[in-house]
């Protein structure tokens, strides 16, 4: 994709609009799967029929025992159209718009947004649109090099290419791997925060060598500092990655006082609140600002936000608080079409998880899955095997998980 032209700052910024967001409750099963990057359709537990659009009963045997199950994404493009007219503001501003009618290998016919290069055999993917609701997108069966550049597809993804990104903490291994990942993906500018500008940290020189990188002082516990940085760059940032975290071990009885817990809350929970208050409003106003608009907000949370891990009990609590606040942020950013991406890693292979046995996710692998999630439009990221296993356990039985991890 060509680098988008510089915007004329005198011109009015187009206000964000959203595609139609209304869905029946049963249809939100598609959204739940798409948020995780999965393609699932309703399947009847009695007779195995796969159906779409979502229904309250099996269209074949009338059973109401319907499950959302992963389905093979292959299909055949039967007919296509190009809309030159729409009754909806979002699409009116984006005409012409391609649609396809696809016969899925698993049975149903689906109406899908159609990638410009898709023809014949196609791949169906459930993706979140700017309204945060799942839609089906038909992609070319074989991935080609510039597939992500498709004008329509970019409406569903948060591709870092040509975008201006703030990584809140460049001092950590995860932060540095993220910066490397964004630089490789063609980000235009990467602002990298560091809390103590008076001293160099390990890896500082490597970061400085990356041409897109600008190091900026950022301490998420310092309201004044956050405000100052936002005054300077909030109107330009397309993607915020809030990866600043404070992590100490122990739960309640192994520690005296509340200072450590307060420090965790100050970074992990209030840090998100400070960033969101200062950067959120400007990003909300730029949700439809051309080909490289404000597009995503990434929070580095933890699987421990889902169920408390007692050996890291106060840390878990601060991440649970941050998770709840991130849901609030998601609701507030949605009208602008800015996606809030929550990342729930298992233990990261760093010094604060020293005593935990492997598997632990490597910072580079974590960074890679965050970049991939932005590219693929995923909203809830469970990177690596450990997080995936936690997720399955949690979905299966949250109470069982609580008992298992406190054992």
């Amino acid at each position, binding site marked *: 994709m060509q680098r988008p032209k510089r915007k004329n700052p005198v011109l009015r910024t187009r206000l964000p609009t959203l*595609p139609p967001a209304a869905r029946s409750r049963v249809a939100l099963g598609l959204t739940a799967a798409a948020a995780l990057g999965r393609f699932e359709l309703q399947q009847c537990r009695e007779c195995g029929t796969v159906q779409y659009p979502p229904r309250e009963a099996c269209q074949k045997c009338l059973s109401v025992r319907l499950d959302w199950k992963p389905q093979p994404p292959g299909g055949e493009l039967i007919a296509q159209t190009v809309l*030159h007219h729409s009754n909806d503001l979002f699409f009116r501003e984006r005409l012409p718009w391609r649609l396809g009618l696809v016969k899925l290998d698993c049975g149903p016919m689906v109406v899908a947004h159609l990638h410009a290069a898709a023809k014949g055999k196609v791949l169906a993917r459930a993706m979140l649109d700017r309204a945060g609701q799942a839609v089906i997108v038909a992609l070319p069966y074989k991935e080609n090099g510039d597939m992500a550049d498709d004008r329509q597809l970019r409406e569903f993804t948060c591709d870092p290419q040509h975008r201006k990104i703030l990584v809140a903490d460049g001092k950590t291994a995860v932060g540095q791997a993220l910066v490397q990942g964004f630089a490789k993906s063609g980000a235009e500018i990467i602002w990298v925060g560091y809390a103590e500008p008076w001293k160099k940290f390990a890896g500082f020189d490597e970061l400085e060598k990356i041409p897109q990188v600008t190091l900026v002082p950022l301490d998420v516990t310092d309201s004044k500092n956050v405000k100052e940085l936002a005054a300077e760059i909030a109107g330009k940032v397309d993607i915020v990655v809030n990866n600043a975290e404070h992590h100490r071990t122990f739960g309640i009885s192994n520690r005296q006082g509340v200072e450590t817990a307060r420090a965790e809350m100050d970074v992990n929970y209030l840090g998100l609140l400070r960033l969101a208050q200062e950067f959120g409003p400007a990003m909300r106003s730029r949700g439809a600002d051309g080909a490289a608009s404000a597009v995503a907000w990434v929070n580095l949370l933890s699987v421990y936000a889902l169920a408390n891990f007692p050996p890291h009990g106060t840390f878990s609590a601060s991440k649970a608080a941050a998770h709840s606040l991130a849901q609030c942020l998601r609701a507030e950013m949605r009208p602008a079409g800015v996606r809030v991406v929550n990342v729930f890693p298992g233990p990261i292979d760093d010094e604060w998880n020293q005593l935990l046995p492997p598997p632990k996710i490597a910072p580079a692998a974590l960074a890679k899955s965050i970049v991939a999630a932005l590219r693929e439009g995923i909203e809830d990221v469970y990177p690596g095997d450990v997080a995936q296993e936690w997720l399955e356990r949690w979905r299966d039985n949250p109470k069982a998980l609580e008992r298992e991890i406190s054992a």
Partner: protein
Amino acid sequence: MLAAPVTVPYVRYSIRAAHWWLARALSSLLEASRLRKQDIDGLTISSFTLAPDTAIGLTQHLGVSPRWLDHIPLGGASGVVALRRAARAVQAGDADIVACIGGDTNHVDSFRLTLANFSQFARDAVYPYGAGGPNASFAFLTAHYMQRYGATREDFGKLCVAQRANALKYPHALFKKPLSMEEYLAARPIAEPLHLFDCVMPCAGAEGFLVLTEGRARSLGLPCIRLKATIERHNAFASDPVQIRAGWALDRDDLYAQAQCEPGDIDFVETYDDYPVISLMQLEDLGFCEKGEGPAFVRKHTFTHDGSFPLNTSGGQLSVGQAGAGGGFLGMVEAIRQLTGQAGARAVKDAKLGLVSGFGMINYDRGLGSGAAILAASQA
């Protein structure tokens, strides 16, 4: 018997509610039949924009007290279905005179709102894909039909142009200018391969007719016509990947057997024509030509009221306008006019037998409801 065809003249936009249009239709029916309101003891109502009311709320709104009432929300199939149900009610003695009314208002923004909430499947699986409404669904059907059966834009254009010629002789048509093939082909694209003149124009309006016994019609001195045969079917051929046919193909033998006639005996046809491709499918499914031979059939005929194979003799919805559920009544009302000698300058010469078909509700990727009726001039 069917009698008293009435039309409340269409307008593009109306500030009135659907109730106003339906009230005008009932009032026109009374005027045409010289009946009093209390003589009408059966009522069917079809309307998209009547919400939150249905037929029952309308009884109090209009101060009528029918002993038989039906709300028929079947879109373009409503006219045929209303006739079927009313005829059975009259036959069974549940009602003596049934008023069948279909109509809608059209505010500047009401079409968008109708599309957004048309059906659960539409809201979940079509509207979020560009809010194209039936344009997008019919674009798929049309593209597929063209690819599979070799239909061209000129074939669809021929129907649109011929119907416009018919409409010029119908006073209530909203389109009053002739349409040439050049203009048709040069129109702007809406949802490829559909262009402007392939798509109906939503408008406000209402249509109505009476169903009653022959004796009653004669005693009232009302010109009337006879219902010879009728069929209805919903969600037929659900396993066809793309719609190429609808219930007519399943039930047409039954239709002609009831009427004891052949397709060749029919003097004129009123199809449901929100998009020309569906007219072709109706001509095929109702036995006027084989499946896939629609394009060849189009090339063979003129479709004007005075030509070979008169079709949509008042101009159809494509040239009159689509007054919501009234669109499902347009062909029925026109057929009654044709068979009772009230069609004026657009009369089909010596018309004795007409076929009206209905097609309704693009619920998701296809139209679900189909119906048809064969009607005969009363001396036939």
